[in-house]
Each structure stands twice: as structure tokens, then as C-alpha cells.
């Protein structure tokens, strides 16, 4: 039995989730400390997104438990960008809604964030006109103004160009060196480079049963 006040930022023991009485993925256990990056790998449909949604608190676990110190920041597949609002209006809304590190300097911070994610040329364009990669960059803007120390990133590299990937890597590095932690999923083709990382390979419930039958 784990003590609730152990030093881990996040501790997961025997976590699993059932959908329609079938396990989505085989139970996973891991611990995460400040400054570390956990890479979750596995084939399509093996439950990576489900795991992140469980960790974020959007789903309730069927088995096992999650001990977390605070609410993590979750960046999923849906960008949470309004088609009818400009990039700047979108980011400004989320800043106001979620709060920022320095709320008194909102205007300067907003411009700074837009520049850092490389969307200054399209800052006044409506969300509907953005490309998939620009959308991804816009949704990653949250990483720059929210102050959660644990990040849950679902396929953060998808749709990003090489500059975008480098940008995300540098944001991530700053976050990790300043005592944050991150859990990231990937299906394998794109991996973060130059990080010390733990890896957790996931097996879907169905794969496991298929293996037993063979």
C-alpha cells in the first residue's frame, strides 16, 4: 500500500479501464517524478488516449488507482479552437478563462505566446482558416501560459513541421528543467529526441486475449 504523501508527482498502480465489460488496455503501473518525461507507446487503438483521459480525470478508472498531487494540464486530439474566433481571440479567451501565471500582463503575454508558437503572421485570422499544423500550434499555446506542473500531451507531434517539433521540444525542455513533468503518447513514428525518458508500452485488452488464444 502506497503512502499518500510519497514524493512522486504522479503514481499509477494497476490502472485499467473497461468499456462494455472489456478491458481497453492491460493494467499499467508507473511513477513519475518532477523533471521526468514518460513516453507512452503502443499501436493504434491500444488505449493511449484512454489512459491520458483517465489521468486527466475525464474518465473514472475501472481498476487500480491514480495518485496525483494536482490537476494536470491535458492537451488532447481536439484543439479547443473556435472556428469563428481569430487566433488571438482564442488564446486570449483561454488565458482569461484558465488564468495565467501573470494575469496583470495579459496583453504582452498574449503577443509573446503567439510569437513563441510561430503564429504571429496569422494572429488575426479566423480559426477556420488555419491548417492542421497551425491548429496544433495554437492548441499547444496553453503550455506557455498555464502553470500546471504535469502535462499530458496526446500525440503532440502530429501535424507539426520540423520547426514546430523543435519548438515543442524546446518548450518541453524548459518545462522539465524547471521542475515540471510530462506524459506523452506516441504511436511510434515520431519520438522526442535528446530527452532522458521513461517508456511505458501499452497492450490493448484485445491483443492480450488474441495472444492467449494462439
Amino acid at each position, binding site marked *: 500500500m502506497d503512502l499518500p504523501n510519497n514524493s512522486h508527482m504522479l503514481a499509477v498502480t494497476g490502472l485499467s479501464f473497461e468499456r462494455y465489460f472489456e478491458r481497453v488496455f492491460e493494467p499499467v503501473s508507473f511513477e513519475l517524478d518532477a523533471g521526468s518525461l514518460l513516453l507512452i507507446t503502443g499501436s493504434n487503438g491500444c488505449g493511449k488516449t484512454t489512459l491520458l483521459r483517465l489521468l*486527466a480525470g475525464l474518465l473514472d478508472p475501472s481498476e487500480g488507482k491514480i495518485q496525483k498531487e494536482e*490537476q494536470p494540464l*491535458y492537451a488532447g486530439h*481536439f484543439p479547443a479552437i*473556435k472556428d469563428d*474566433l481569430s487566433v488571438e481571440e482564442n488564446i486570449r479567451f483561454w488565458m482569461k*478563462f484558465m488564468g495565467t501565471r501573470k494575469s496583470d500582463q495579459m496583453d504582452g503575454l498574449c503577443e509573446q505566446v503567439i510569437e513563441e508558437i510561430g503564429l504571429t503572421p496569422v494572429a488575426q485570422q479566423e480559426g477556420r482558416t488555419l491548417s492542421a499544423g497551425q491548429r496544433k500550434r495554437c492548441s499547444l499555446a496553453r503550455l506557455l501560459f498555464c502553470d500546471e506542473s504535469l502535462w499530458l500531451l496526446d500525440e503532440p507531434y502530429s501535424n507539426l513541421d520540423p520547426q514546430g517539433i523543435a519548438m515543442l521540444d524546446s518548450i518541453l525542455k524548459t518545462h522539465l528543467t524547471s521542475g515540471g513533468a510530462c506524459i506523452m503518447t506516441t504511436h511510434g513514428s515520431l519520438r522526442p529526441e535528446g530527452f532522458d525518458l521513461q517508456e511505458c508500452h501499452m497492450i490493448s485488452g484485445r491483443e492480450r486475449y488474441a495472444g492467449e488464444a494462439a
Partner: protein
Amino acid sequence: MSKQATGTAFVALLRRDFLLAYRRRAELLQPLVFLLVVVTLFPLGVGPSPTLLANIAPGVIWIAALLATVLSLDSLFRSDFEDGTLEQMVLSGQSLALIALARTVAHWLVAGLPIVLLSPLLAMWMNLPDEGLLILIESLAIGTPVLSLIGAIGGALTVSLKRGGQLLSLLVFPLYVPLLILATSAVSSAVVDLPYTGQLGLMVSGLIASLTLAPFATAAALKLSLS
């Protein structure tokens, strides 16, 4: 996590909703045009007899208002659900009931209030006697917020269904029945100079009850739709 002050988040959400409503004003006009068309069709359908129209006026206007509201309910949470905004809001640590209330207030201001403002015109078309006009406006002013509040529960319940529109109307129309009965009876009573404060009083109590309870039901339904 340094959570944003609740009031600031509430205001930010309201402002965003008004900006979105302004950008999608064509979408917003549809239910109102629908309301006007439905009321216009009645004199053509049942005949232009002034006394007949005056008799059915409260019912016709109220039913048209009901239909127009339901028409705009399906989109209340849908786009926020589909683009991931809703899950981010849930995770932001803000009270989900307050988020639901902000969306509902915005919905009433852009969909319910215009119906109240249009009602004198509708009353004139339907030849409603002057004695009933003020009560009609009052009943709509009290009743349309209830339509939005109760409708939001239905909208939240059906948001994860691809075509939730029909189910939504099946869910909320029965809940609108008491309101419809009270409102039309208040207006009809006023026209024939009978007391109507009882009906209006019951409507106000309905408004207070739904204002305090519906946001929590909406929040629970949203949480359910997200999991």
C-alpha cells in the same frame, strides 16, 4: 494550480459567447425568422376572423416561441463539445454548473430576449386585445429564461449523440407543458379581465426553481456526456 477567479471566468465565457453569436448572426436569426413565419401562417391557415385570432393568439405565440427556442437548443453545447472546448472547461477546475449557467444566460440573451422584444409585433398580427399585451410580454419575460434553463439540460444530455435534435425535443417538450398552460391561461384571463397573478406567481416560482437547480442538472448531464 492557480485557478482563475470564478467571476472572471464567467465574464470571459459570456464575452466569448456574445462574440461568437455576433460572428454567427445568420444562425441566430433563423429561429426568430421561424417564429415570425409560424405566427404569420396562422391567419392564413385558420382564417382571418379577428375574434378567432384573438382567442387563439396567446397559445399560438407561446407555442411558436417554444418551437423557436427548441430549434436553437441543439447548438447550445454541440460546438464546444465537438472541438474539445468542453473537456478543457471541465478540466479547468471551474465549477461546471457555473459554466452551464453562463452558457444558458448567453443563450437566453441571444435567443430568448429577442422573442420577448418581438412579442408586441406578434400580438398585433394575431389581433390580441390590448389588455392582454402587457401580460403576454410579462409571461414571455418570465417564461423564456425557464425555456433556456430547462432546455440546457436536454441539450447537455443529447450533446454526445450525432443527431440529438429530435430526442432533445422529445425530452424537453413535456417539461415545457406546465409553463405553456400557465402562460396562456394568464394571458387569456387578462383579456377577459380575470385575475392572472396566480399564474404569473407560479411561473416566477418555476423560474426561481429552474435558475437554482437546472445549472446543476446541466452540469451533471455534461459530465455524463463527456465520459
